[in-house]
């Protein structure tokens, strides 16, 4: 399973151009484009939540999306995953236009996601959660007359996933009994169980203790280098540890994008996170949790 593979080392940042402005994409260097967003606009009545955002994300990227609350990050994720249809623009997944495709269809094409607020099957056991996930792409999910426990391959996959991230001894517990950190890990495992090529992580470290943040960061760094990860995260420390390229949204617009270190020094970004006065005071420590 690609998602469960241990990542030996975080992918070294490629020699990409510095953030020259909102429209500057990372250099592809012959790499396949995993996700291509062309002028995506999403409106809720009068509110424009995402305003003509264009991004190109190469396969195998570690791509971060940041911005203040209400910037449109999660709305953009919902458009990417197929839960929302954009008012205009197109989304291409590995060159295929998926703009009109439903969320389950996109999962079949290789897109997995987690949610900002943990979304699990809380009254089901960890084993049942993982079994449901590994059966997501299998035709046997419509099987009516054979107990799900007898699908040994699915059971083995579920156990392998649980073991790979230390949840093996929790297989018999209901998800509702897990700690918040374990819930976050389980959510990532569910997303990995559908063998994604593109993984969308919506604030995977939200609500975690410092120790749990280290754990989730380690978990994400161990993932298959071939997996494209797009992550929304407010915690710049976690973000820095996982992604090498960041796009900044504000009021639905793409403010800038570039290598993480450069974006952190970007004046507009510091204004957004620290306020105009602090930014001009030369605040250099856009490092820890910023929201």
């Amino acid at each position, binding site marked *: 399973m690609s998602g469960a593979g241990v990542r030996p080392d975080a992918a070294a940042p490629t020699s990409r151009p510095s953030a020259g402005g909102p429209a500057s994409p990372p250099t592809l260097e012959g790499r396949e484009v995993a996700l291509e967003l062309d002028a995506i606009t999403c409106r809720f009545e009068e509110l424009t939540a995402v305003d003509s955002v264009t991004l190109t994300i190469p396969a195998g990227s570690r791509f971060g999306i940041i911005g203040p609350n209400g910037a449109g990050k999660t709305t953009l994720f919902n458009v990417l995953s197929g839960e929302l249809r954009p008012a205009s623009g197109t989304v291409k997944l590995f060159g295929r236009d998926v703009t009109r495709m439903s969320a389950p269809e996109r999962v079949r094409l290789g897109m997995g996601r987690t949610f900002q607020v943990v979304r699990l099957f809380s009254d089901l056991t960890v084993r049942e959660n993982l079994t449901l996930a590994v059966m997501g792409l299998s035709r*046997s999910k419509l099987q009516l007359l054979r*107990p799900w426990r007898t699908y040994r*391959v*699915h059971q083995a996959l579920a156990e392998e996933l649980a073991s790979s991230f230390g949840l093996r001894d929790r297989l018999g517990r209901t998800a509702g009994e897990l700690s918040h950190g374990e819930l976050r890990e389980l959510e990532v495992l569910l997303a990995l169980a559908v063998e994604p090529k593109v993984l969308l992580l919506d604030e995977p470290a939200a609500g975690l203790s410092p120790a749990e943040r280290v754990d989730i960061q380690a978990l994400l760094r161990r993932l298959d280098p071939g997996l494209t990860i797009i992550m929304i995260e407010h915690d710049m420390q976690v973000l820095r540890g996982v992604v090498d390229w960041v796009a900044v949204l504000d009021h639905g617009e793409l403010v800038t994008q570039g290598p993480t270190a450069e974006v952190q020094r970007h004046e507009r970004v510091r204004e957004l996170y620290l306020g105009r006065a602090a930014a001009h005071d030369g605040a250099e420590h856009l490092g820890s949790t910023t929201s």
Partner: protein
Amino acid sequence: MDDLGTTTPTTLDTLSAEGTPARWWVAPLTLGERMAGPILGAACLVVIGIILTSGSYLSTIFEDILIFAIAAMGVDFLGGFGGLITLGQAGFVGVGAYGVAIAEVHGYGPWAATGISLAAVLGLAVVTGVVAVRVSGITFVIVTLALGQIFWGLGYQWTSLTSGDNGITLLSSPSIGPWSLSSTMTVWVTTFVVFLAILAVLLLMVHSPFGLSLRGLKSNERRLRALGYRTGLQRYIGYVIASFVAGIAGVLYIFSNHLISPATLTFSQDGFLVVMVILGGLGTIWGPCLGALVVVMFEQEISTYLARWETLMGVVFIAAVIFTPGGIAGLLRRGRLALTRLATARRRAKPAGGPAPAVASATAPNSSAGDALDAARTRGDGDAARVTAAPRAPSEGDR
């Protein structure tokens, strides 16, 4: 993915440890206690058999209980596992019964009429399902209620087909050689066999991958979609199955009562089916059978002594919802857990000079109590987890 592949010994071990729901509570019991369940079950079957074959009034009541239990199990399949409470299942009971009666009136033999009826039920479930499963939650309840009322309205007002308020009488019953449904005893036995078959099939279905996905649908539909499930399809299949089961109950109803009228399709009948499910135990399949027993006894027995039996049933229903949210099934489960705790405590007390129960529990997480805890948690049984909680052995997952 290959579903039929082999697995590692570890997987098999885990499956055997977790895969037998009965083991965790049976383990601490003595042989006599273990045999109590099967003996009680066999005794119940014998009593039911005697009642069914006695030809008494009680046997008629019992037949009605089984028929409505079938329909209620269908409601539970969709509502208790998929989270989709339907208020239109009495309509499908009516379609099943009317289907047989109308086909016979139009010259078809009883077997053909049964086939036509079941096909009509399936066809209507397939068609109405397209509309019903487009919505969920309270909207689904209202849509199914509306569909049920449409069926009732057709039964009441399409007099040229249904004879309106008078209903239609069954002309003949199917038979195979000497086995004829015109004999009351044959009808009772057939009803019982069909009931057992549907109970078994539905229990199998709720433990299947589809059943698991139904539980996922109830728990978190958005997450299920994000795992590649077309949840509309899950809802649709569940709806068609539940409706078809109700239709089978309807076919049995006409062979049992020999008359079908719009009274069987009224909103109150829909309500009674939901009451059977809630009272018996939502999400258990077998619980609604006990709910059907209570409701039918109220309707047919207590009503002879008490004019306001519906008021009393309402009070019982409210009390049950407040004091035993898991219904009768939940009550029985609690009793079973109490029995298990008692047996466990007794077994711990027996060995002379052995460690104190608390110490034994703390130092032997893999003991039967530990197994009971893990298995109870597997089944999501919070009560058991609280009562018999033992420390968990540290592992690499601990943080």
